[in-house]
């Protein structure tokens, strides 16, 4: 029911339509929280995120930013590939 409301309410959405098509709400929440924790930790360790290193750092030609951007693009694409395999290509 909650899932239904999240998906069909006109104002209130989950923001995770594709993920919710393959997962119930509970696991979706766990996955989003775990992913976001990695995201925050990784950004703190690397000293920046998609905008910090990916946009601003590369625009000022900082070698560290090129390294960080190339690394997170690679692991993100590989992780997406793993997620696709894990869901049998549904995601």
């Amino acid at each position: 029911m909650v899932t239904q409301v999240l998906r069909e309410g006109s104002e209130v959405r989950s923001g995770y339509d594709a993920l919710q098509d393959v997962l119930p709400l509970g696991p979706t929440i766990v996955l989003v929280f775990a992913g976001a924790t990695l995201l925050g930790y990784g950004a703190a360790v690397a000293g920046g995120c998609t905008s910090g290193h990916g946009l601003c750092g590369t625009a000022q030609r900082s070698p560290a930013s090129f390294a960080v951007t190339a690394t997170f693009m690679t692991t993100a694409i590989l992780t997406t590939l793993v997620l696709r395999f894990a869901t049998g290509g549904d995601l």
Partner: protein
Amino acid sequence: MKLNLIGLLFGALFGGLLAGAQLHEYDTIHAMLRLDEPDVFLLMGSAIAVSAPLLWLIERRGMKTPFGGEFSLSRSMPQRHHIKGGALFGIGWAIAGTCPAPALVMVSSGALLGLIAIPGIFLGLHIHERESQNQLHVGDGEHRNLQPTGK
């Protein structure tokens, strides 16, 4: 105060742009990382294509900024923590389908799971904070633990 207002203006523009590009939707990020849609790559590329030459020009001319004094770009050499952090960030990005700025846009757009993502991000920041308590802290973000970078 004036600086804060300018920050607010540009922050609002940035947030609006992220929302306009649908970057706060999991589906957009997922389609990008699945290499199905080139939009986000093009968006990032065009942003860099605009700012890089401008920054280069401003730096070369030694221009002063109106509010921040001397204009100086900070560059650093890649170190182990950049690779480690970047790798974990990428994994989190693919799983959560959002990164720090779009997560804030999610909440303001009414996408409720942004309320899950944001505490997650803060937990990650907190874990790193606890880990690095013994280390020397100088500044924040990219420029904490300043070490000679060969520049």
